[in-house]
């Protein structure tokens, strides 16, 4: 099945929740909706599910207009942040419930429930009640219930938010494999760029109800079509610094200069916003022409295996994403190295002008989504 959205707009009490969203989800695709809280992820999923109606625009399934159809006519399944199960039924009955409602023969129910339960590693828990299980197991039960009915559209609304990070790691790895053999469309909402990357597939970046960019996940990450898209798909957010290109030189503020390299030369003269990924800043020079930048530490956030070094300097704040564990005192002075060959360039209106690493091809960058 394919799912097509055409100019989907939803307005509630004069507030625009979705603004002209158009996208085509291929059969069997895994799609991540990435965006901050209130970016429109849940609104979009509810429209896809038929739980909410659009204000204007069309929703097509397999080319057939289903815009006005309610959720019961659409064969969709949904998994929520909260672990939603029937508390008084066993795990087995919970998973079987959608099949019972669909009047599937008992023998077939049994086969399918056990199959899905073993896929999700809860086959040993079938006779337990949900509240006796851990959070991860409860969410597995909810997922099993969504999977068992063979829905053509499966929606996940931030399903891992309430689990601790080790469980999230496990789930992310399993999810891809779980749907590899199925031809349903999966839509998965998350606020975390790292989760989108780990899940792979396609990613749609949403911001303030608008679809900023949609494409294969790694592509969207590497080739953001706007500054907003780059900022949304980066955690910690991409560092942005304003600068001028004049003659053959780039100037940040009044004390940082460097010669234009091959890639940036095509931009011409004027004011630009340059973006550098936190992971591309380092404590030691990675190339001969790296720029040194003296900064003051705000806080070193340590994830256990990585360090996010938040700093400020005369032109604002920056984050460096360093591998390994490094400790710094608040207000400590540090020198960071800044790779001039890995700068993104954006116009003042936010559109992408230059992407480092790849040969410049304007047609790629201009492929904006409306």
């Amino acid at each position, binding site marked *: 099945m394919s799912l097509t959205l055409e100019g989907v707009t939803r*307005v509630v009490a004069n507030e625009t929740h979705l*603004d002209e969203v158009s996208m085509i989800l291929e059969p069997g695709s895994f799609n991540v909706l990435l965006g901050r809280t209130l970016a429109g992820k849940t609104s979009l999923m509810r429209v896809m599910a038929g739980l909410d109606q659009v*204000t204007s625009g069309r929703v097509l399934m397999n080319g057939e207009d289903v815009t006005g159809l309610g959720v019961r006519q659409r064969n969709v399944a949904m998994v929520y942040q909260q672990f939603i199960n029937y508390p008084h039924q066993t795990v087995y009955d919970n998973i079987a419930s959608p099949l019972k409602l669909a009047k599937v023969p008992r023998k077939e129910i049994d086969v399918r429930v056990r199959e899905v339960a073993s896929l999700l590693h809860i086959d040993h828990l079938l006779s337990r009640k949900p509240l006796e299980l851990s959070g991860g197991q409860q969410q597995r039960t909810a997922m099993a219930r969504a999977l068992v009915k063979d829905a053509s559209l499966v929606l996940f609304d931030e399903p891992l938010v309430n689990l601790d990070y080790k469980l999230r790691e496990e789930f992310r790895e399993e999810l891809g494999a779980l749907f590899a053999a199925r031809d349903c469309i999966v839509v998965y909402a998350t606020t975390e760029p790292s989760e989108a990357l780990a899940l792979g597939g396609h990613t749609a970046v949403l911001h303030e109800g608008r679809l900023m960019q949609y494409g294969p996940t790694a592509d969207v990450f590497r080739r953001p079509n706007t500054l907003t898209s780059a900022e949304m798909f980066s955690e910690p957010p991409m560092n942005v610094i304003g600068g001028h290109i004049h003659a053959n030189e780039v100037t940040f503020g009044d004390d940082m200069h460097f010669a234009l390299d091959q890639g940036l030369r095509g931009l011409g003269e004027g004011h630009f916003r340059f973006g550098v990924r936190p992971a591309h800043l380092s404590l030691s020079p990675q190339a001969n022409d790296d720029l040194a930048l003296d900064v003051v530490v705000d806080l070193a956030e340590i994830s256990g295996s990585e360090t996010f070094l938040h700093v400020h300097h005369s032109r604002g704040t920056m984050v460096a994403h360093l591998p390994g564990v490094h400790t710094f005192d608040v207000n400590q002075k540090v020198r960071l190295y800044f790779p001039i060959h890995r700068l993104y360039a954006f116009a003042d209106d936010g559109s992408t002008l230059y992407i480092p690493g790849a040969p410049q091809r304007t047609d790629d960058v201009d492929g904006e989504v409306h």
Partner: protein
Amino acid sequence: MNKVRNNSAWWLVLPMLALVTFSAIVPLMTVVNYSVQDVLDPHTRYFVGVEWFVDTLNNPGLQAALARQFAFSLTILAIEVPLGIGVALLMPKRGWQASLVLILVTLPLLIPWNVVGSIWQIFTRGDIGLMGWSLRQLGYPYNITSSSIDAWATIILMDVWHWTSLIALLCYSGLQAIPEAYYQAARIDRASRWAVFRYIQLPKLTNVLVIGVLLRFMHSFMIYAEPFVLTGGGPGSSTTFLSQSLAIMATAQFDVGPSAAFSLIYFLIILLVCWVFYTAIMNLQKDRRGEGPDA
């Protein structure tokens, strides 16, 4: 941005509107209608303006009943609210004891008003009533039909017995909703038992208490069946409250116009008192923002 305006949802409000019209507005309007007319017989009536209202407000009997009514309502609130909070604080929080106490506390609430009156009527009798008999044995000449003090005390006691449970239950549910962390924090801050009550429990009870006080006020202001059964409003008219005066006027004397005016005044008083009380409480909770930074 093209906005689609869809007003069809308004139709859904219609049934609700119809219901309110029939249950509240129409009867009220009938009363308003009567209150400005003198009805001599079903076919003869005159428009009298606000005459009945003036009469009612100047009627010394009714003024006295109103005063009694306020005295009664305020007295029972002054007793039932602290007592209810106290009972709630003493109730066990969990286990079978909690269930048992909960049932015992709920019992008085399950007894109908007029039955309560009858029970107490028997209870207070000097010959066979446990309380009446005991008090007399102790040497107190207890008699609710001759002593207005006895009658008053008994009615108040009866109301406290009947309704303290309501406040206690409301407070109990309010107390149960306070997270354990608050008590732990208070212990760590070395708060005294009184401070825990004053700064944790009482603030968390404010909302249920507002509901409790409003309910008890409205209820007690309209009290009818219990004193009617117990004392019949006597001795004299010492326990004749507003609703009983109204009933006498409307049914025994069939003064439709004055009783309608009386009803409206009665209604407005209750409304006014509730509004004043509610506004006062809500104002207490407001923040005094925008003041200087220093304490």
